[in-house]
């Protein structure tokens, strides 16, 4: 066994979550859902836009969670899949007049293929080496999008402007609010599919590979197939997030999808708790709001303040939001007993 494989199979570099603990209880889920449904009615359009972005980044973090928490593979290249999804939607909408809702599944399929193909060479790598290979992908993507011969479609350095859709059927709501609800429905559907997937035979195969590749193979799990499938699924979900992002921001440009985005998503996963799917939204909130918070504390030293805040989170709750949730549950249990 090489040192690289040891990272995944021996040391718990990926802090795995038992499967039952991967989701929320029914009561909590309904509460969160109700809050997400009612909230936009009471807030301004800009806040609604921010909440839409929260859902979109939450979806992208969820995608990484399926890959890393589920199958134990690292990726610092999620921004590349996000970019492919965003550009697929932008090009289809602006050059081919395809309906925005239809571009989502197309982006998903394109990104699935891209992720599945990228997973093939990545099979030979694991742990930090895989992270480096995906890092290279993320670094290359913005430059690829600027290539001259693609410029007719991608708009080159300028990028593309995307038209924001109106609410259909003459519904009396703003574009932002409509897009929020549209995003919410897509995100909830994908969340449910992801939970189903991780609880299924395929999901068990992912987790078996994460925990012990040789034993998984002896049980008949095609390790190469499921590793690439995990990449494909993760890329597809990230691509859909990218599509929604393009529609919400109304603009795609190569420099929106740099390695910084990939690292942010990675950060979101860690803060939310690796492998804990509901944590994705908490992680997304961290990467969206904490930089603003840091800027509020000190304009000149916002990066340093963000660093300190991040350090505090990792020091106090190394397993992220999942740990907070478990502590909360224990506390609630104690209260109930008394």
């Amino acid at each position: 066994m090489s040192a690289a494989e040891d990272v995944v199979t021996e040391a718990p570099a990926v802090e795995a979550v038992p499967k039952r603990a991967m989701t929320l209880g029914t009561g909590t889920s309904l509460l969160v859902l109700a809050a997400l449904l009612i909230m936009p009615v009471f807030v301004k359009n800009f806040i609604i836009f921010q909440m839409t972005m929260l859902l979109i980044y939450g979806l992208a973090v969820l995608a990484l969670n399926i890959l890393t928490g589920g199958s134990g593979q690292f990726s610092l290249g999620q921004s590349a899949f996000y970019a492919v999804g965003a550009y697929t939607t932008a090009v289809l909408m602006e050059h081919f007049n395809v309906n925005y809702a239809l571009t989502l599944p197309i982006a998903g399929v394109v990104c699935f293929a891209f992720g599945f193909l990228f997973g093939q060479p990545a099979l030979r790598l694991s742990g930090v080496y895989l992270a480096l290979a995906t890092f290279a992908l993320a670094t290359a993507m913005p430059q690829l999008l600027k290539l001259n011969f693609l410029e007719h479609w991608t708009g080159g350095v300028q990028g593309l402007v995307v038209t924001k859709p109106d609410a259909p059927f003459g519904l009396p709501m703003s574009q932002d609010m409509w897009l929020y609800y549209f995003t919410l429905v897509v995100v909830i559907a994908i969340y449910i599919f992801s939970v189903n997937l991780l609880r299924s035979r395929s999901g068990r195969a992912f987790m078996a590979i994460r925990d012990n590749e040789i034993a998984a193979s002896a049980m008949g799990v095609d390790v190469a197939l499921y590793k690439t499938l995990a990449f494909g699924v993760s890329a597809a979900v990230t691509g859909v997030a990218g599509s929604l992002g393009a529609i919400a921001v109304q603009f795609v440009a190569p420099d929106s999808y740099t390695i910084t985005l990939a690292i942010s998503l990675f950060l979101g996963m860690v803060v939310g708790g690796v492998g804990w799917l509901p944590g994705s939204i908490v992680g997304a909130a961290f990467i969206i709001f904490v930089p603003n918070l840091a800027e509020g504390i000190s304009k000149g030293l916002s990066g340093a303040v963000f660093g300190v805040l991040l350090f505090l989170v990792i020091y106090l709750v190394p397993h992220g939001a999942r740990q907070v949730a478990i502590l909360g549950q224990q506390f609630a249990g104690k209260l109930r007993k008394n």
Partner: protein
Amino acid sequence: MTQAQLAQGTSPLLAVRDVSVVFGGIVALNGVSFDMHKGQILGLIGPNGAGKTTLFNCLSRLYQPSSGDILMEGISILSRPPHRIAEIGIGRTFQNVALFPNLSVMDNVRVGAHSKTSSDIISDSLRLAWVRRSESSVNDKVQEILAYLKLEDVAHTVVSGLPFGTQKRVELARALAADPKILLLDEPAGGLNHEEVYVLGDLIRRIRDERHMTVLLVEHHMGLVMSIADHVVALNFGKKLAEGTPAQVQADPDVIKAYLGSKDQ
């Protein structure tokens, strides 16, 4: 006469034919041949470095023999990749317990049924009706095996926290979930105390008789092998030293020499 002895005349379930494995310049296995018949418990013994684990890994396709062949029901298994061994009815356990530590006992055993079922990511994501049916039949099977091995109490416990002896039983349960024709057990007695070894021997015999399996037992623990095996193959320095009933092999002068050393040395 036992069932195994009656079967001697028929064609073997598993045939190891002249298998050699060479790592660089080192000959780990040198022309080893033997047959396994249906319903047998075959003990594979030998001192450290004799080639037992190498042979075991050839059977589970982690190593490719340099020459020779391994036939399962008359068909060579050597062109199969490791993950396509379970589907032809060869199940295994590992020397140092190779469970999926973060999964529950039940999920570990469910993974054992992977080769017996099929699904795809889209049907799984949508939880289509046929997927639900397949899952519920897997669950019934898993429940039955957990009851058989007295693991119901820990069904939902994550395996990494369980005692070693229990983990070994979970591994056995996982192997049984695929209903293998041949069960390969790599040192199942390792790390168990005297009483546990006795219980294990009984269990292996029960599995053979009640679940109609053929067992290949690679084991250091002489007492266990000699008490439950129908047939014993002894290896030393990659070569077959002796083969026969436990009594025959125990009495073989070469085997005694390999284990105890001779007076001449």
